[in-house]
């Protein structure tokens, strides 16, 4: 029982980190970035390259991965989102194509076979009879630290409030002197950074492979649908619901069914409450 709680907390922390960057773009820019999973892949592989192949310090590796993710986000905004002028369908489709292109690019650079990422923080400890690697523990702690700072950033800083304003009413924000374009750009950058950092931890939790972008994308999608848009707290709660459902499914039912309940939850929420459990209703 205790083991389930601990594992649930650890996995959920990781999931919250994975989802938050995706939620951010969906809330502020109102577009589905289907290439979001590719940030995680870029982050994971960049970290692998810098710290495992070049032997750079681990922290530097994480930072460089984040920088690359940020660049990817900014480029995507400049080269895809702006030319498509906010056409949602076109952005969804083109980000999907982009994800496949990035996948092919990764195969090109690193090959087809999966790679094992050495633990970022080596070592194992025992908590209440469950063995917990320092690696996943660090991931969870970092994830909480990032989520709390992001929450404070959005609630307390001028820039964060501007992001909120754009997410609620683009025109209104523009009238009150906020440039939605700059805010969008910033959001894409932050989202890319968050995705890449999440990718480092996700990869160390599972492994690096060119198709690793699909699973986190599905998790992010689930969190956004179930939680609704525009709520970091909602993202956190739903990441825990999904994380615990998976851990319980694996422990009590069958490991193969880990994702099934997540999908059923998505479908159920969409039928019962299309705006999500914690999201605001769209204002017409």
């Amino acid at each position: 029982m205790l083991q389930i709680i601990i594992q649930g907390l650890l996995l959920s922390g990781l999931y919250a980190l994975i989802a938050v960057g995706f939620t951010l773009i969906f809330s502020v820019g109102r577009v589905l970035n289907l290439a979001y999973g590719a940030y995680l892949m870029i982050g994971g592989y960049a970290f692998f390259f810098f710290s495992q192949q070049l032997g750079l310090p681990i922290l530097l590796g994480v930072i460089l991965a984040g920088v690359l993710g940020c660049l990817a986000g900014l480029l995507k905004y400049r080269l895809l989102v702006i030319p498509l002028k906010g056409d949602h369908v076109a952005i969804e489709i083109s980000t999907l194509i982009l994800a496949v292109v990035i996948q092919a690019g990764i195969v090109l650079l690193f090959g087809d076979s999966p790679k094992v990422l050495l633990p970022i923080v080596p070592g194992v400890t025992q908590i209440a009879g469950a063995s917990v690697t320092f690696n996943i523990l660090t991931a969870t702690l970092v994830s909480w630290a990032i989520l709390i700072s992001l929450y404070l950033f959005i609630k307390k800083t001028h820039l964060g409030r501007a992001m909120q304003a754009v997410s609620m009413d683009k025109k209104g924000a523009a009238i009150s002197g906020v440039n939605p374009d700059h805010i969008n750009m910033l959001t894409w950058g932050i989202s890319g950074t968050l995705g890449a950092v999440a990718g480092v931890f996700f990869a160390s939790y599972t492994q690096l492979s060119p198709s690793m972008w699909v699973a986190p994308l599905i998790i992010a999608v689930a969190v956004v649908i179930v939680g609704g848009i525009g709520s970091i707290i909602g993202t956190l709660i739903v990441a825990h619901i999904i994380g615990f459902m998976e851990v319980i499914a694996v422990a009590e039912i069958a490991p193969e069914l880990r994702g099934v309940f997540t999908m059923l939850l998505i479908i159920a929420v969409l039928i019962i409450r299309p705006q999500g459990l914690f999201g605001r209703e769209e204002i017409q």
Partner: protein
Amino acid sequence: MNIRWYHFALWAAFMAVMFALPEFVSRGTLRTVIFANFLAIFAISWDVLSGRTGYISFGHPFLIGIGAYTTAILTKRFDVAIEASIPIAVIVTMIAGFIVFLPALRIKGSYFALVTLAFMELMYQLVQVIRPDLTGGTRGISGIQGITRGAVNGYYLSLTLLLVVAVTVWLVMRTRVGTALSAIGMNEESVRGSGLDTTKLKLFAFLFSALIAGLGGAFYAHYVGAIAPRALFDINFLFTIIVAALIGGAATTAGPIIGAFFLTFLLEYLRPYLPGAERYFIYGGVALLLYMYQPKGIIALLETMKDRIIRRSST
């Protein structure tokens, strides 16, 4: 209906070229064309729903997979004759499409795309664990009975299927129902404001699309002989279908066919020069650039060219 003589001329020319093809090309090329034919059927199926009404489906592999699995399980595990198993597979696919449609009724835009994606992932995971004795679990089903032998026969079968599907879709979409579905894609509220029940229209598009997907999926399973969850319920497969429809030209019948052939042959012709993974990189890149340059697809590019030539010759 607004059908002109040159429409028939174009269809006849297309059929003539396609039926004569085995005389001119190698067996290897023929196998490539067979894949293009199936891809074209899947892309048409996607287009009937998403290209016309603007409701983007990320779940078409779900429908195709159900068609393929149903007929594979029926013929392989229960010795049902193919003549019966394919129609059953089509009906099962339509029922599955209807089940997806119910939650999708209440949602619009991006959420619709996401729920269809969720269905695909759900199916991918379920098919591996529920009754693996029937579905073959992770490894899938192999040794599925074929309908024909040899590349030439396989080619004619896939071509006939493509032509039947394409001509049917073309005829239906030229009637007022096609206009109404496109109208939903442009402004759903105005369609309701014109007194038309859009739920009924969307259900029709969904079932018609599922019918084609199930039919294509079932024939495809019998052609390739082996199916596996990761090959069917897969984002890369989804990508190929959607891109074929869009690159060719959505909301047209010729578009998805052109797109499917373009993609298949792009991949095939890159092979001698780029034997490795670079091929997919370039393939995706070309698709992305083409889509960004002309979201209406190759068919729109051809039309601009035609207009330019006509204008030049007339001045």
